[in-house]
Structure formats: C-alpha cells, structure tokens
C-alpha cells in the first residue's frame, strides 16, 4: 500500500497531491530550517507586509535545531523536533505557498485543514535519529536570525533525506491509522 517516491524541491501542487499517508519519500534539493522562535519571526514579517528571508512558494520547512558541526562537517546531528509547537504558525505559511513540513508528532486540526485546503504535506522524520539524518545533509548555510543559535533559519541541501507522509492532502493521518491497527481496547 505504501509507495516510495524520490522527490526534488520545490514541490508542486501536482506532486503533493500524489502523496498518501504512509508513503515513504526521499527528499532531494533545498529545504529550510525553522523552529519556534524563527516561526514567530516569519509570521511577524508577513503581518508587517515584509518579505520572508526565503521563497515560501513550493518550499519545505524542517523543524530542527541541529547540534553545532564538528570541524569539516556541514552540520551536526539533525533530527526533527516535536511539531505541535509550530501549529499556531504553520497554517499562515501554508496559505502563503509552503508545500511541506518535516517534524515529528501530532499536528492540530488547523494545520491538517490547511494541508487539505491549500495542498501541503506534513512529513514525519524519525525522532532521535539525529546522527543518521545529519549525514543526509550535504551543506548548511544560515540565512536569517543567526542570533537564535540552533534556532536560526538555515538553508540545507539534502540528498535522499528519508521521511514518511503523516498528513496528506486528503485529510488522512498516519498516526491515527497506525495506532488503530494495534490498539487493544
């Protein structure tokens, strides 16, 4: 039932519409990092009618605060952080053209509704697999808010970055489907 895709960013409406909850996706190309503090600043910029530090159309945002790189490495360990903390900001960014988010854990209804309405995907990456996931990141450059340290916005180039479709554009949720199969009432 689960299909495997190799996709390159930016993502189009057509591409994200193919994806279903449970599909495995290997992402390639540019993705951007942002966590709590950066999300607040991005939405503040939109409220002020200012430009975002990167093109949001078709973009994928990774919820991550990496460890500092060791000398010679582009980045340190870089697994996903828990996504619900971005729930109050994500719908706004999705409405502006964001096509993918990578994190771990549940999203609220505002986010999944926005995923349906504007066609966007919430991908899950494996939490706690920071060493393994960091190796799929080939370059990292801070493009905004360096003062936020691990929370600064980074532009990453990734190769075959492994994620799973959690919330698709049809209102399905992998966490609900998976749990229902194994729950003993």
């Amino acid at each position, binding site marked *: 039932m689960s299909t495997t895709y190799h996709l390159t960013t930016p993502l189009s409406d057509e591409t994200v519409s193919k994806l279903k909850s449970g599909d495995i996706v290997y992402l390639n190309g540019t993705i951007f990092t942002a966590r709590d503090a950066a999300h607040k600043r991005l939405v503040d910029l939109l409220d002020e009618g200012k430009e975002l530090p990167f093109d949001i159309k078709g973009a994928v945002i990774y919820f991550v605060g990496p460890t500092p790189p060791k000398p010679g490495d582009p980045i340190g360990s870089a697994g996903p952080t828990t996504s619900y903390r971005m729930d109050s900001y994500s719908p706004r960014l999705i409405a502006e053209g964001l096509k993918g988010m990578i994190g*771990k854990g549940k999203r609220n209804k505002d986010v999944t509704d926005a995923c349906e309405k504007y066609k966007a995907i919430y991908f899950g990456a494996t939490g706690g697999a920071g060493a393994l996931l960091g190796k799929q990141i080939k370059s990292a450059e801070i493009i905004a808010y360096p003062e936020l340290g691990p929370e600064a916005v980074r532009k990453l180039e990734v190769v075959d970055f492994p994620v799973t479709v959690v919330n698709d554009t049809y209102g399905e949720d992998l966490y609900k489907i998976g749990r229902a199969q194994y729950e*003993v009432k």
Partner: protein
Amino acid sequence: MREIAYEEIVKNVRDIIVYSASNLPEDALNAMKEAYENEKSPVSKEVLKQLLENADIASSEARPLCQDTGLAVFFVKLGADVKVVGGLLKDAINEGTEKGYVEGYLRASTCHPFTRANNKDTVGYNLPAIIHLDIVEGDKIDIEYAAKGGGSENVSRARVFPPAAGKQGVIDYVKECISDAGPNPCPPLTVGVGIGGTFEKAAISSKHALFRNIGSVNEDPEMAELEDVIKTELNKLGIGTMGMGGTETVLAVHIEANPCHIASLPVSVNVQCHSSRHTHITI
C-alpha cells in the same frame, strides 16, 4: 576527610557528558534490540531498525545520537567525609557541564523562559545544570547523570489525587498521560512514576526513576508488580515506535514510591524518549 580536587570533578563531569551524547548505554541499547525483535508492526520495526543504525553511527563516528542533547540533570550523593578542594561542588558540576557541551559540539538548549534568548550572559552554554544533591555516609562522590530532552519532558505531568484514587487511579493517570502524548515524546519510552511524598517529592522521584537501568527489578515486590501491570496496559495503546502504530510503546515503567500525607496521593509521570542517555560514576 578525603580531599577531592575541584578540577577532578570538572573533568569527570565533562567526560561523561561527551560520552553519553553519542553512546547509548547498554541497558537502553539492549531494550531497543528486544523491542525490535518483539515488534509486530512492520512500519515500527523499520523505524526501530533505523534507530539501531543511528546508535551505531553515533557511537562509531562520535556524533550525538540526537540533536536534542538535553538539559544536564544530576543526582549527586556527596559522602560526608569528602572535602572538595579548590571550589564548590555545584560550581564544578556546572563548569564540567559547560565544558562537555562546548567541547563535545553539543547543542546549548537552555534559554530565558520568556525572551527565549540563549546567550552566555543570561544562561551560559547549556547552564545551569539541574542538580539534586544528597549527603550520605562515606568518602566518595556518587554521580548519576542524564541528558534530558525536551520532547518527552513536555508530555510529563503531576497531580495530587485524594487517597481514594488508589492504585487504579495511578494506573489510569499514567495511561491517560501516555495515550495523550501519542507520538510526541519519541516512543518506545521509559516511564518514570513518582508516587507519594509531597508534590515536588513525587516529581523528583519520577525523574530519578528514569535513571534506573532498564531491565532492573524494583526492590519493592508490590511496586515491581505494579510496574508490570502498567507496562502491559501502556503497550495495549498501540502507539508503537515514533507513533507509527505497534506493539512496543514502552520499554520500561519505573516506580519510586514514598510515604505521603494522610490527605494526599501525589503522582508524577516523567517520560523519557527511546534515547535514554544516562550514566553513573563514583569518584
């Protein structure tokens, strides 16, 4: 009096912090392997495989297991016959913590609660460490350390029940906590349960319960039995590894119980993700 140099404590603390960040302790690694063997869901099994591979990469390439290298939490037992020479014990632990996080290329995850600013003027590089100190007999310093991540801490909770809630009240409360948490705290989990004491005693006990080795048996047979009951109940939730659905949601339930006030039954649930980075040394 045995004299222990401030610098010796700094060095020991620094070393355990750096080592723990990339090396999953044997008890946690074995528990993850066992979960991999037992897991019925192919999706969760695949993710467990990825996590075991991650542990392998982290240890062989000295990379942090997880980007959340935690807040540094210590339970320290200071022997009454020890004199720390050259500075204060608390300062030595904090200095060792900062050294470990800086020199190990670990993430500084502390910040001001409201401004969220993360700079050396206000908080230091991942400082302050969280230190629970006890004074005991003897001439040694016993240090238990864990790197405590935020995702699992965020789903932890505490409540003071009326005594009538009893054992069933505790079971239901823990189950509700883990069920609500779902995929967020990075299962499979270790669940620390502090029962009794006062409000804060229950919370500290639930934290300390996470430092116990997975697979060890509770010394109190009644609590050992309750741990088994709760673990079975939690694994019925079907959450699985990273919430993908599955049979292995918790690796262990650890209880620490204390006598409490005749009017109260405090219960605290502290949750630990699958990356249970904890260690124990004696100086």
